[in-house]
């Protein structure tokens, strides 16, 4: 472990989650008691956690628990109802849309469905942030985009349109587009969902390489246990709108907590309450 992992555990009885202290020394990002509701539906009920420099930090939990909602707050795509978010020592949850743009240049996001622009080739997609933020001309941006696409092993499809490619290829191109910003942090929303095992492991390798080679902090929302147990530095398990358990891979593999074990084992029977089932 490159970073001092903390291990915290919620109620092992499954009677309800507890607010857990998940502070990390030398943290780059801190969520402090985040609450978020959509209409009458309360999604986050006091999420607190801290993520360190260069960490590969996974957020796991059942569908609809608020994993994607949590990370979208970091770049201002959603706004907290209460609580605070700190990035690099500065509070960011209260920034207005305009003031969020500098933060977004440092925190990139790879969406679940890649969100490449259909009307552009892969190279043009990757060149867009280069043109906009790196003050590169059209030709220079395209040349730099080709290099970035090569880094994610997409050099053979630089002039293809997103619609003609597989999900895995689109996601790799989306990673290249995010890397074009030279971000300090990259948020991944279910990067391996819907991919075949080979493509999924390639994405895992890319995430790990980004941390090891480029010093990028990665926050990954995922259900993919193979990914989690192969590349995560630390893991936060969200349950009932709170961080139920936070720790490193060994903490999760060796836990006695019935709820965590049910999730990791993928058992339909157990103490975990899953609304709608």
């Amino acid at each position, binding site marked *: 472990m490159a970073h001092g992992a903390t291990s915290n555990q919620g109620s092992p009885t499954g009677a309800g989650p507890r607010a857990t202290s998940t502070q990390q020394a030398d943290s780059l990002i801190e969520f402090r008691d985040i609450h978020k509701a959509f209409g009458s539906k309360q999604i986050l009920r006091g999420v607190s956690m801290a993520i360190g420099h260069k960490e590969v930090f996974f957020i796991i939990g059942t569908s609809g628990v608020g994993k994607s909602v949590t990370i979208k707050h970091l770049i201002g795509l959603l706004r907290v109802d209460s609580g605070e978010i700190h990035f690099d020592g500065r509070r960011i949850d209260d920034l207005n849309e305009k003031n969020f743009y500098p933060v977004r240049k440092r925190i990139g996001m790879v*969406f679940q469905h890649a*969100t490449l622009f259909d009307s552009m080739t892969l190279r043009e997609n990757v060149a867009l942030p280069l043109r906009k933020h790196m003050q590169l001309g059209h030709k220079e941006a395209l040349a730099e985009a080709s290099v970035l696409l090569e880094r994610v092993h997409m050099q053979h499809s630089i002039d293809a349109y997103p619609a003609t490619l597989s999900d895995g290829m689109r996601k790799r191109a989306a990673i290249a587009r995010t890397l074009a*910003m030279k971000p300090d942090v990259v948020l991944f929303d279910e990067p391996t969902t819907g991919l075949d095992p080979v493509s999924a492991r390639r994405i895992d390798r890319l995430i790990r390489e980004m941390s090891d080679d480029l010093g990028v902090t990665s926050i990954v929302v995922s259900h993919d246990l193979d990914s989690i147990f192969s590349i995560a530095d630390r893991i936060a398990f969200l349950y009932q709108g709170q961080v139920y358990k936070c720790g490193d891979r060994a903490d999760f593999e060796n836990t006695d907590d019935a709820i965590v074990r049910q999730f990791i084992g993928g058992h339909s029977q157990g103490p975990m309450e899953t609304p709608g089932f």
Partner: protein
Amino acid sequence: MIGEGLITGIGRGTMAAWRELGGITVLTGQVLRALVPPTMDRPELLRNLYRMGNRSLPIIALTAFFVGGIMVVQAGVLVRQLNAAGLVGWGAGYAIFREVGPMLIALMFSGRVGSNNTAELATMTVTEQLDGLRALAIDPIRYLVVPRVLAMTICLICLVILGDIIALYGGALFAMLVLDLEYATLHYSLVDNIGWLDFIHGVVKAGVFGAAIAMSSCYFGVSVRGGAVCVGKAVNAAVVAAAISIVLLDFFLTYLLP
């Protein structure tokens, strides 16, 4: 009970209409603010000018040509009865420049370009491509909406000017074929009676209609929530809103402009 339901329905409809109008007004404000200073993505503007303008040209030209013909054929009966061949050029030109040209071409443009624009933006919205832009620290209003508004406004002005000319030639051709009039009669009837003001009147209308189509199509595109069904509803709402705004604006502009 029926009366209560009717009043509730009218109330809901009115509230919804005001909400949409408010949304379009806010978006218009954001677009105007983004134009100061006028920094926008030039490739995106050029791409939109090409696909909205160039690709609309054949259908607008065809429509305009026959609109000119319809004007003359409709006038034909009266022209024969009143022996007023000298007024055909003036009548056709006046109607085409001031009313029929801008309005019909705007409606065609709304159906072809406005609906396409709404569908594209709405699809981008529901597939999180707009959030993707924001995540790249790119303002979707500045990058996507502003170039489209400018492109649609410029394109409609150009298409109306071109359409007016084609409609006049269409009218002249049909007048010679159907009414057996000479080209010179039509020409002098037009140039002696139609002034620059008539032409500019139509061009101003075209600009306003273009902006209205652009704003409504962009608004319904970026404000859509939900999935594919909502994209269809957004396109429908945008076309209806554009048609209504064209008619209302036409009324007020006709009243206000010289």
